[in-house]
């Protein structure tokens, strides 16, 4: 299967939406997303059928087209289990995103087109094996986010949109410096080819200089403390589908980049900077959790909790152990699904109650049991309840972090584990105020429960969460070769 197909589908859908009248836009988008999901599942099947899919960390389905031959830029695509799981995540979240946006009234066409552009960016990012292309797709997604927030958002949307765009642009700029550094490490002989660069890592001094650029750059995308401030504002101002995409996929671009670009290509530097990464990650985890505790706006709560949760991704990457990295990957998928669902639920609640202030809500379980139940489920997932995906990921990160007996690692792990209590505090606080508790307003008794599209969106995501939560071995087997090959790189270095 040519992976460019994954890009083609959203692009065609985008074109289709452009050509169709506005009323049909959402149907076209739905069709596109369903086809995309099917394509991803077929891809998964084909991937698993590959004889060496589970044997080695080889990147499969590689295709290499020359793009800019004079600069040695190639449209080079290929996936391993890690990228595949990200791709699946993207397709799930996109479909859910389209479904929850069913009621969009304003500029429907543009909305869905931007959504498709976003998904194209994400797919492209995950399938690329050429740093230029990676960067290209990373940046493609910035502007649609800006537009989605600014046009369809709520609250101080312009401010948030601008802040998000600028911070992400700044992050891109840093990544950009890192990429060019990698490019020039051997005078462009390997070009931007990820595989070749990995096989031929730069000298330590070069890595040490460029690693922070790449890592912090991608880190900003994944809410690295203290560059996370776009997250709360951006997420809370975005329309539901936008928040879902932002938190569900966009932040994963960063985590994936940290792993695939920064750590994989500059393993020496990763070792060198690991304590710093861990420190920042631990701070993000605890600090995000405490900051969440003080929020009263539902979207802010989830946004800050994303800061905390994404800290686990960084922690998992930073500890540089196989378990940790696998945990980080699973946390990415898990957080993607979970936070997308959470935002979807928040969106549904907001659509009905017209408020996001938890103090003004209460007793929603009485009138909208479906939404409330899903809300509680995703909340429980967020606090890392076994059976949901979050638990698996967090535990893997903990184990991965605890493996290293260095006191710093220990303290970081303790801080990270401590966050599960703080998480419980804010999550239960939220659930207690929104879903449970006395019904605050008469009108809350007559709310309409979820419609079919909302239900299907929610069920789609919760199914993913439960699947990972109940049968983690599936995803672990899927990503194992990928993490192993990254690990090989890292241990090779630490061995020498």
């Amino acid at each position, binding site marked *: 299967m040519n992976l460019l197909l994954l890009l083609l589908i959203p692009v065609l859908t985008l074109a289709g939406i452009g050509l169709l009248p506005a009323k049909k836009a959402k149907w076209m988008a739905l069709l596109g997303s369903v086809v995309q999901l099917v394509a991803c599942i077929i891809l998964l099947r084909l991937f698993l059928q590959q004889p060496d899919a589970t044997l080695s960390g080889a990147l499969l389905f590689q295709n290499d087209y020359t*793009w*800019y*031959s*004079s*600069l040695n*830029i190639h449209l080079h695509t290929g996936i391993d289990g890690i990228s595949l799981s990200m791709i699946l995540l993207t397709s799930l979240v996109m479909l859910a995103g389209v479904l929850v946006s069913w009621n969009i009234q304003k500029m429907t066409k543009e909305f869905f087109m931007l959504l498709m552009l976003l998904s194209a960016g994400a797919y492209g990012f995950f399938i690329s094996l050429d740093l*230029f292309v990676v*960067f*290209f*797709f990373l*940046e*493609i997604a*910035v*502007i649609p986010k*800006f*537009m989605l927030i*600014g*046009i369809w958002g709520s609250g101080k*949307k*312009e401010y948030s*949109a*601008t802040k998000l*765009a*600028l911070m992400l*642009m*700044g992050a891109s*700029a*840093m990544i*950009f*410096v890192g990429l*060019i*550094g990698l*490019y*020039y490490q051997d005078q462009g002989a390997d070009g931007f080819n990820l595989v070749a660069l990995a096989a031929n890592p730069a000298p330590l001094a070069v890595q040490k*200089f460029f690693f922070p*650029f790449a890592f912090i750059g991608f880190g900003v995308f994944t809410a690295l403390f203290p560059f996370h401030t776009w997250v709360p504002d951006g997420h809370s101002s975005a329309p539901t589908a936008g928040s879902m995409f932002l938190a569900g996929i966009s932040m994963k671009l960063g985590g994936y980049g940290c792993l695939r670009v920064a750590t994989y290509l500059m393993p020496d530097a990763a070792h060198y900077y690991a304590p710093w990464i861990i420190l920042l990650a631990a701070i993000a985890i605890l600090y995000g959790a405490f900051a969440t505790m003080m929020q009263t706006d539902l979207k802010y709560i989830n946004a800050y909790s994303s800061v905390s949760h994404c800290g686990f991704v960084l922690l998992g990457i930073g500890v540089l152990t196989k378990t940790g990295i696998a945990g980080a990957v699973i946390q990415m998928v898990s957080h993607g699904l979970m936070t997308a669902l959470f935002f979807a639920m928040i969106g549904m609640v907001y659509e009905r109650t017209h408020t996001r202030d938890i103090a003004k809500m209460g007793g929603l379980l009485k009138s909208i049991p479906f939404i409330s139940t899903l809300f509680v489920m995703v909340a429980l997932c967020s606090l890392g309840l076994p059976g949901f995906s979050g638990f698996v990921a967090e535990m893997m990160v903990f184990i991965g972090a605890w493996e290293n007996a260095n006191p710093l690692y220990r303290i970081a792990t303790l801080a990270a584990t401590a966050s599960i209590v703080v998480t419980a505090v804010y999550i239960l606080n939220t659930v207690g105020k929104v879903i449970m508790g006395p019904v605050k307003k008469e009108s809350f008794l007559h709310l309409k429960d979820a419609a079919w599209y909302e239900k299907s969106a929610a069920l789609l995501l919760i199914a993913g969460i439960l699947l990972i939560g109940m049968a983690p071995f599936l995803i672990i087997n899927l990503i194992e070769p990928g993490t192993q090959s990254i690990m090989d790189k890292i241990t090779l270095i630490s061995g020498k």
Partner: protein
Amino acid sequence: MEILELMRSEIMLTLVIMMLLIATLSDAKWSNQTMITVVNIGLLGLLAVGFIFNKSGSLFGDMFATNDLLRLEKNILTLGTLIISLQAGPWLRKQENAMEFYLLLLTTLLGMFLMLSAGNLLMFYLGLEMSTLPIAALANFDLKKRRSSEAALKLILSSAFASGMLLFGISWLYGTTGSISFALLPGLLTGSPLQLFALILLIAGFGFKISAVPFHLWTADVYEGAPMPVTAYLSVVSKGAVLFVFLSVLFKVFGSLENAWYAIIVTLSIATMLIGNLFALRQQQIKRFLAFSSVAQIGFILLAISGGTVQSTTATIFFVLVYLFSNLAAFGVAGLISEATGREQLADYKGLHRSNPALAWMMALAMFSLAGVPPMAGFFGKFFLIIAGASKGNWFFIVFASLNIIIAMAYYLRLVRLMFMDTTDNPVVKINIPLQSRLALLLCTGGILLTGIFSGAYEYIYSLVSN
């Protein structure tokens, strides 16, 4: 007949100019529309002529040279002129002096052609003046507007001063080497202080034309005061032409002094990026805004030029092409709005998306491309510029440039924000877009969207440059 083959663009351009002149002087009273059509067809022909029969060679001693790269550069300029001419339609139709407008415009284009093909400093100087002086007249074309004449005055005074400086530099160069020929100069350069001084003066002369800080101060004022098509022309075509020459002069003639000019270019680049961006950030008028944005873009181009490699040349030429599409799209939209409503403040763009979605999207595309956002061509342009600039490994410089991208992003997005997110009770009315403008905008859109995605343009330029 060699002259016909090698100078066909110039000759054809001269013919068009002459035709206009004759048509006006004789009794054939062409309406403005006819004139516009004739010129557009002429430019199209020029473009076509530029693409066929590739032959390189030189004439008049070595005063005039042409090759595929130069022809491509000329084509880029012609394309820009054609788009501007298409866009100028609505404005031009109301002018009494359409013929003169075209005559002056095409003369400057001819001047640029000559400047590009110049084989020595004299031809270069002549071309430069020929491409500058008529623009001063063009800038004054809104005869009844104070701003227009003020712009023209500022342009001509600055330009006179700049050419004085340039000539002063050339005189020292001549004095120390005894030659004004591009072919002979490299062998005669020794890098003596006086030659460096001459080099600096020369760079200042170029810097004036491409509006590099601190030689840029005329830019915004002239852009604001001049009529929209003239501003577009100034910002794209005339700047592009000088850039092309700058590249070849710097690399081919002063290649041996690279160590000397590298630091100068870097300094100028840093100042240009920073000042351009900071000023663009606070602009309230669309043309001033685009002026400072173009200043900032020049900073990036200088960054690439500082690399001094084949990639630098390629990236710069490519960027000029991309920039042409992007900037002309922006000017096209601004021109339509200005022409229909007379509104040129950024605040006037509030809620543009409601009344004129097509224009707003067009403008947004242009802004994104200028900001360097994929998949717009501007992204590729900027990326290649920085890659080319990074070849020297001056990482502080690269980091600085990257940070400047953020500031640039801020003001480009600001306009998008105004158009899409802000609302106003006094939005721009629905504007009817004439066919010609539509065509021009379509051309720009195509350029913005396709030039980067398809590597053909860049690779073609590269193959020409590396020959």
